[in-house]
């Protein structure tokens, strides 16, 4: 639309047009390069990944990295298995489990609230509850990190310890969900951004359709399920995609509220492996030599960037697939109109 629809033959316009095309293609190339490099690196040998200059194509393609990861995944009794606290499939499964519950609980809860806010509530009530739901979007998550952490320890008290009931030796009843998957899941069940997405979409559904259904006699829930839901597939796709990638890539929060190694999601485990592989911030000789020793151990296990890249690919794969699956709906589902 920005280029005129007629008169495209003019040389100046043509040049400008092709410059835009070239810019976009260059961007795509640069954007895809990391994907390519990751894939190629995963097939390089342990020496080659450390070679300088880096190679564009593996000199001798090897599956060493993949084989190593397979042994990690199976948790079979190889030297490499010492690198991790358990078989990799376990961490992967943890991620799947966490993501699954976040989606199954979060999407219906968020969308129902957004629907009610968009179509059932009116006037000041609608405005207040809208602010109630998206207000936290404007607050830095860092602020609530500690209270949320304490809350997982002593739900429903966001305090370091459960207060005692005055006048007795007893404590108030409390639940500790810390170090369980629920501690990771529950705080992100309701996602304000998804609320905004849903609300933006539901606002564009004409009221008359819902009124027609009311005249027909559907209960509000029936109207939602039979009429609104089928119309809203695109926004569900987008919301599922954002909730999915958010939950799958979570990193800081699981690191804070999970302690048992066997409960960690894959993202955290890859990070820990990377930490072991290359300690950052070695400042003195002792540390450096200890680091070299550790590095030696890991390298002798056959672990190097190639193996890490394989893990990275495995970790990315679900995000990738989700993106491809939802791609048809991404543009149709987003109807945001700002924070108002």
């Amino acid at each position, binding site marked *: 639309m920005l280029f005129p629809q007629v008169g495209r033959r003019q040389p100046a316009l043509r040049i400008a047009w092709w410059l835009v095309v070239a810019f976009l293609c260059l961007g795509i190339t640069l954007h895809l390069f990391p994907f390519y490099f990751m894939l190629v690196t995963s097939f390089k040998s342990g020496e080659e990944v450390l070679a300088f200059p880096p190679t564009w194509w593996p000199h001798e393609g090897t599956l060493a990295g993949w084989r190593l990861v397979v042994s990690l995944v199976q948790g079979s009794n190889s030297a490499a298995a010492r690198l991790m606290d358990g078989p990799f499939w376990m961490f992967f499964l943890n991620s799947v489990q966490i993501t699954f519950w976040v989606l199954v609980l979060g999407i219906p809860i968020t969308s129902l609230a957004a629907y009610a806010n968009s179509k059932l509530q009116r006037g*000041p009530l609608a405005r207040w509850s809208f602010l109630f739901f998206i207000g936290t979007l404007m607050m830095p998550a860092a602020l609530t990190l500690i209270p949320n952490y304490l809350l997982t320890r002593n739900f429903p008290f966001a305090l370091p310890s459960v207060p005692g009931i005055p006048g007795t030796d007893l404590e108030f009843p409390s639940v500790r969900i810390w170090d369980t998957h629920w501690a990771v899941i529950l705080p992100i069940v309701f996602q304000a951004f998804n609320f905004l997405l849903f609300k933006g979409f539901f606002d564009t559904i004409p009221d008359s359709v819902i009124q027609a259904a009311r*005249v027909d006699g559907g209960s509000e829930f029936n109207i939602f399920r039979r009429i609104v839901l089928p119309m809203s597939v695109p926004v569900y796709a987008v919301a599922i995609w954002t909730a999915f990638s958010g939950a799958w890539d979570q990193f800081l929060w699981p690191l804070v509220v999970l302690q048992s190694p066997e409960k960690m999601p894959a993202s955290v485990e890859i990070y820990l492996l990377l930490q072991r592989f290359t300690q950052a911030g070695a400042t003195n000789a002792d540390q450096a030599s200890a680091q070299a020793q550790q590095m030696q151990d890991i390298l002798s296990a056959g672990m190097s960037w190639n193996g890490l890249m394989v893990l990275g690919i495995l970790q990315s794969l679900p995000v990738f697939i989700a993106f491809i699956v939802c791609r048809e709906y991404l543009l149709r589902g987003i109807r945001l109109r700002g924070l108002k």
Partner: protein
Amino acid sequence: MARIEVDQVVKRYASDTIVDREASRTRPALNSVSMAVADGETVSVVGASGCGKSTLLKVVAGLEYPDAGRVLYNGTDVTYVRPQERGVGMVFQDYALYPSMKGQGNLAYYFQVHDRTEEEAEQRVRETADRMGVGFEHLLGRVPTTLSGGEQQRVAIARCIVRDPQLFLMDEPISNLDAKLREQTRIEIRKLLRKFAITTLYVTHDQQEAVFMGDRIAVMRDGDIQQLGSFDELYYTPANLFVATFIGSPPMAVLPVVVAGGEVVVGDLRWRLPDDVRPAVPDGPVRLGVRPEGWIVDAGDGAVLRVRHRERIPTERASFLYGSVGGAAVAVATAIDFPDRSEVRVTPEWSRAYFFAADTEDPIHLPGVLELF
């Protein structure tokens, strides 16, 4: 079938601001509206956009609950009864078909949510398809997005009658159609209403449509019903100046004049009032309303009308001359073969003239319904 009464209904929409201050409130969408619709009657509600006509319809349907006042069906108070229990059928301006369901599903939804059997739904849908006439059958198998406006409209009407409603509510059902289809559909809907003799409220912004559809017409403005009556009543005995100018096309010309000693003074022109009208109009400034057919052309004492524009309407064997007299826009109906002239002289035909107060909209003297026989 049902008799509908609307009793002093007030409806005010809550404003969208956080604090519901009195100052931020606009005037109510419905300001103590009362009306009655007889059994089997069709009443058109007409008015400019934002006058509250759709709100009135929604209150009658039960989609909105009034802040005060009552709605009665057959004498029973249904003000707070939910729409599905009122047995109404409603057609919306944008048809409001359920986009995820085929035509069949749109019609059957009512039966599904009312726990009726499949067979009954099936049978009723088939009956309705028969009633809707030729070619309707194949609309049932298609998704609304693949239907044209007219076809969607037919499905919407079918969805409305499939439940055998006791009240039809139509909210500008044909204003989204193109002109030719609108004409056609208007006749079809009229036939349908005649056939079933269902009580109907028909909302529109088009006065011709309102006249065509309604046994009676309610003219609304700013949340009030100005007048409710048959076309003749509205046309010849308007309740006020607004109704008088709203009904009729081209609209009535309104000239500010002064009446003095049985004479109407417009600028430097003086018209003598006939004896039967003179006692009804007091001396002083008034507003004189003359409809296009109320002018006598080329009488001796006529005011000069410069013809700005001439419109010929062969179907009505008439042509309209547009111009102005004393600053007021005037339309004059003449014969179709009236010669093309740049100037004519026009005089009001006093038996068809309307007089309104100069400062209010109240009528002073109206011609009354013409007795043709």
